[in-house]
């Protein structure tokens, strides 16, 4: 049987070392196995590695590997393959996994199926990285042969192998019969079909043209639920959405919004995040004020989602010297949801005297303006990572890659670095809480909400488990004939 | 000169009291027009531009744009039978077979995208069960007949490959291929120069003599009329003001308009004095004078001219619609 899954957009290049998109990762869950995987509760569990352990100093990670695994091209999976993969991720010039594996200094093949990674320093995020693209194993034979063109014909060791791809139309995978756990996978082929329009995506499911879709629009939830032929599953995502404010990125930061945290606090206070969730997302998403959703263990309970306080916001404005209100220009991606969201924000903020004007830009422009510091405030989000570090470190530490706000605070840097290198959960948690105390006050990013992944499936499909990472794991999924 | 004895035959086409009005016009464009033509004979209709010559002929063919005009009175007898202009089916049967027409503009009257052969063959097949080959043979024969050299080869030509004279000959071939009893030629030579014109007129004359076909020739060139007419009808503003045998019309015109027309022709011999003119222009339907339609331009107009003058017989079938015909006598009387 064929499983047809509608994706919101087309995947980019199908090379785990080069790829960048969320939908690409969805395809990889079927195509490429990783060293480790996660549970819905974000615990790390075995996949290609059966066991692993850190050395005392946390600078060595030893992994035991499955010995019954072959790549789709027949190349056996072993310790050498792991070494080759790590090497590729670090040294292929096009690789985008370099920073994820930056702590790894060397790979030691200890046995045919035992391997050791040597680290510069303890790295708390490493296991989570290995549970994602950095941990995906590609066939070293194929990789050497194809080089940077590997993505045209990806060869991994997952339960499905690459069959064909027509850009913007479909990516088709077929069952890999030599998969070690082939019996748990019940579809002969899986097709991923990019259908960008949410209404059309749902219509396709309703008309039976597809079996499943990801990212159902929150506003379509009620309708999908009322349709007997459709079941819905959801999970709060790992990411967040917010407004990034330019505090030190070039000349444009040189304005009250960049200089005075009280204005940013006022903006945050002027918003009713729950109402935003209700109006824009029918209440299906989660209001938020931190990089992690309130449901996350990493969420700092000391700073709950603030209630709206227009008076307080006004007071802050007055204190900052703007008793008559102040203007703010926010750039927004030119798509429906961000525009709608920002119009609500606009409307709410105006009651506190913050007059927001929206400039919608098409994403490429928005992104380059944001990196270049050519903005005052920007509505943007982050898709989220399994490890908390992924949601905060690169945004808030000095000179970090994604720190477009150019926020810089030595204390925050120290705290986040500590959290990164400690394997002690308690230490990490406290560091994050301490950093939160500062960031909440300074508010370079005003967090707004956390998306909920919503999947809609044909009701004949069983065995689907929603994960907060938004992936579709095909293991155990079945479709009853009917 | 006619090979067919037409003496005993009734008139081929008789038009009586024919009136027609365009939609929305305040007066009849064609007002009580009567004329007739016999087999083998040629009737010339002359008159100034815009006086209604083409409208009349198109009406006879049932080719006026649908809904554009309404026929207010009159009857038409063709080969002894009354024609019903309101019956498109019956008209279509006659049209192109018994009664055919050639138009003024040889350049635009042939369909530019079809071979002339096919256009003639189509005319044959529209009115008979002839096979393709038969129709083709007839077309070739007809082209030969109208004086087109190498007709079988010419059949494959497109209209633009022919000169104006040749095109007009093709039109004539198309009109004659079904042996019509009556040919209506609406200014067939106006667009051609004199040498070609002479050829065409000779052709029509010959064909007529040969087949006994009746012809209505519409023109405002009196030279052409003198050349070809048996009888002449002079039209002015939708009325027939004078009609009769050609000889009488030329040598003894009665109506002031006919006289004016004749006087305004430059001559090839004699003194070259100032030309006499008919001043003014044909009235349009909107400002049609009551009574005699020529009265606004007539040098003899009197109060009585506000009543419609009847077409009175002067003799030999010569009729004129003027209160003062014959002028030289009547005017003296009234003076």
């Amino acid at each position: 049987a064929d499983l047809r899954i509608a994706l919101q957009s087309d995947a980019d290049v199908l090379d785990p070392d080069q790829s960048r998109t969320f939908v690409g990762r969805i395809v990889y869950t079927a195509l490429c196995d990783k060293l480790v995987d996660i549970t819905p509760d974000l615990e790390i569990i075995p996949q290609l590695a059966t066991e692993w352990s850190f050395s005392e100093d946390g600078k060595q990670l030893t992994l035991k590997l499955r010995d019954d695994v072959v790549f789709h091209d027949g190349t056996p999976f072993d310790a050498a393959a792991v070494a080759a993969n790590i090497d590729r991720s670090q040294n292929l010039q096009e690789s985008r996994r370099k920073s994820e594996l930056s702590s790894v200094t060397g790979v030691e093949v200890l046995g045919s199926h035992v391997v050791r990674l040597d680290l510069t320093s303890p790295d708390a995020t490493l296991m989570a990285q290995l549970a994602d693209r950095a941990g995906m194993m590609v066939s070293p034979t194929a990789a050497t042969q194809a080089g940077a063109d590997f993505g045209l014909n990806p060869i991994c060791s997952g339960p499905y192998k690459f069959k064909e791809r027509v850009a913007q139309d479909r990516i088709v995978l077929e069952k890999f019969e030599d998969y070690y756990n082939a019996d748990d996978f019940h579809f002969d082929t899986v097709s991923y079909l990019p259908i960008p329009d949410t209404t059309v995506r749902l219509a396709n499911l309703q008309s039976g043209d597809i079996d499943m879709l990801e990212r159902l629009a929150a506003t379509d939830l009620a309708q999908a639920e009322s349709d007997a032929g459709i079941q819905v599953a959801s999970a709060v995502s790992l990411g967040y959405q917010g407004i990034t404010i330019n505090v030190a990125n070039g000349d444009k930061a040189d304005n009250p919004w960049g200089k005075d945290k009280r204005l940013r606090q006022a903006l945050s206070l002027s918003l009713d995040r729950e109402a935003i969730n209700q109006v824009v997302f029918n209440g299906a998403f989660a209001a938020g004020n931190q990089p992690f959703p309130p449901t996350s263990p990493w969420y700092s309970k000391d700073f709950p989602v603030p209630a709206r306080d227009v008076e307080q916001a006004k007071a802050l404005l007055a204190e900052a010297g703007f008793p008559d209100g102040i203007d703010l220009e926010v750039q927004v991606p030119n798509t429906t949801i961000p525009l709608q969201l920002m119009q609500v924000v606009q409307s709410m903020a105006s009651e506190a005297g913050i007059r927001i004007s929206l400039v919608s830009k098409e994403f490429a422009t928005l992104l380059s303006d944001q990196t270049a510091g050519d903005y005052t405030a920007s509505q943007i989000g982050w898709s989220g990572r399994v490890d908390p570090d992924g949601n905060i470190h690169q945004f808030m530490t000095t000179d970090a890659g994604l720190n477009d706000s150019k926020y810089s605070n030595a204390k925050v840097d120290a705290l986040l670095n500590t959290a990164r290198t400690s394997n002690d959960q308690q230490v990490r948690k406290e560091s994050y809480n301490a950093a939160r105390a500062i960031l909440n006050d300074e508010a370079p990013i005003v967090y707004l909400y956390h998306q909920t992944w919503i999947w809609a499936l044909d009701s004949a499909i069983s065995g689907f488990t929603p994960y907060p990472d938004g992936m579709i794991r095909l293991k155990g999924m079945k479709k009853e004939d009917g | 000169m006619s090979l067919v004895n037409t003496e005993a035959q009734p008139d081929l086409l008789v038009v009586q009291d024919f009136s027609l009005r365009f939609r929305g016009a305040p007066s009849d464009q064609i007002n009580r027009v009567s004329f007739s033509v016999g087999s083998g004979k040629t009737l010339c209709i002359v008159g100034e531009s815009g006086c209604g010559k083409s409208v009349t002929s198109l009406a006879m063919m049932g080719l006026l744009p649908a809904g554009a005009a309404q026929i207010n009175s009159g009857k038409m007898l063709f080969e002894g039978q009354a024609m019903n202009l309101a019956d498109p089916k019956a008209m279509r049967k006659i049209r192109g077979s018994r009664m055919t027409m050639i138009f003024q503009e040889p350049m635009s009257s042939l369909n530019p995208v079809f071979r002339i052969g096919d256009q003639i063959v189509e005319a044959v097949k529209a009115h008979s069960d002839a096979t393709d080959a038969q129709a083709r043979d007839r077309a070739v024969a007809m082209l030969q007949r109208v004086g087109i050299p190498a007709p079988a080869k010419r059949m494959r030509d497109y209209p633009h490959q022919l000169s104006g004279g040749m095109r007009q000959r093709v039109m004539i071939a198309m009109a004659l291929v079904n042996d019509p009893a009556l040919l209506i030629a609406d200014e067939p030579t106006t667009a051609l120069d004199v040498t070609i014109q002479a050829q065409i007129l000779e052709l029509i004359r010959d064909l007529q003599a040969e087949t006994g076909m009746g012809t209505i020739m519409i023109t405002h060139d009196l030279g052409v009329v003198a050349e070809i007419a048996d009888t002449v009808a002079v039209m002015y503003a939708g009325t027939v003001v004078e009609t009769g045998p050609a000889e009488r019309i030329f040598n003894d015109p009665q109506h002031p308009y006919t006289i004016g027309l004749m006087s305004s022709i430059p001559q090839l011999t004699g003194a070259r004095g100032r030309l006499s003119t008919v001043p003014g222009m044909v009235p349009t339907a909107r400002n049609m004078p009551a009574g005699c339609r020529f009265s606004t331009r007539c040098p003899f107009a009197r109060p009585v001219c506000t009543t419609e003058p009847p077409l009175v017989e002067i003799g030999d079938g010569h009729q004129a619609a003027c209160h003062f015909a014959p002028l030289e006598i009547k005017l003296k009387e009234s003076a």
Partner: protein
Amino acid sequence: MLSFILRRVVIAIPTIILISIFVFTLQKLLPGDPVLAMAGEERDPQVLEFLREKYRLNDPIPVQYFTWIGNALRGDLGISLRTNQPVLELIAQKLPVTIQLAAMAMIFALLIGIPAGIFSAVKKGTIVDYIANVVALSGLSIPNFWLGIMLILLVSVKWKLLPASGYVPLSEDPVRSITVMIMPAFVLGTALAATLMRHTRSAMLGVLNSDYVRTARAKGLVERRVILKHAFRNALTPIVTLTALLFGELIAGAVLTEQIFTIPGFGKLVVDAVFNRDYAVVQGIVLVTAVGFIFMNLLADVAYVLLNPRLRKQ
């Protein structure tokens, strides 16, 4: 005829070069860095810089252009920055789709537009004419995405008559391929049908008054033959010219329709490529569409000559 075509082709070359320069420059002027746009959430400055070098994005624009055109002349249109697929392969994948969609839309438009145009010209001023015009104008004014989604909701979801989207190559399953394309082709065709209808109407109105149509009637031909053979054949020239122009537009212009019916054609490809600043892809498509555009116009000129004996060689 052959030399005519040859000359037209020769004239087309500078046009195509001009177009490619124009589009190339315009693209380069767009804000947004292709490498950054593609990087999305993962912006490793080192990798970005490497990619810029690799795709020669740091070269001066004229150098980039000459590199590109040099490769293009050797049949290498470069690769997509986003998916690494060769542009030529992408085009080969999309072209049949686009042509099928455009052709089907055109067939719809012709089947509806021309008869409607003839009919309303013949019945000018009657209620039939009036209704035909209003319907045509509605076709012209309804936005494609609106009509498209409405059709999906009704025909696919409610009545389950036709598949909502997807594309199957004609070679794979002709029946399904055509079924799937019916709705998008219809949506795309409506506005075209309206345009064609109105042009057919006015061309026919002009021709119906002509002398040769009168001649055809004078021959005693039945009205249907007069209109369909004599009048329509002559009205055809402007319609053919227009059809070619529209077909050229269709090849690149079906963006929204493709988006809604998820048809993997040129329109969607070029839109995504533009948004991702996938220059090679945009440039490749523009090149192909320009060629197609010029080819259609060439066809129109040939048809024009064939339809119009006056232009044929003696």
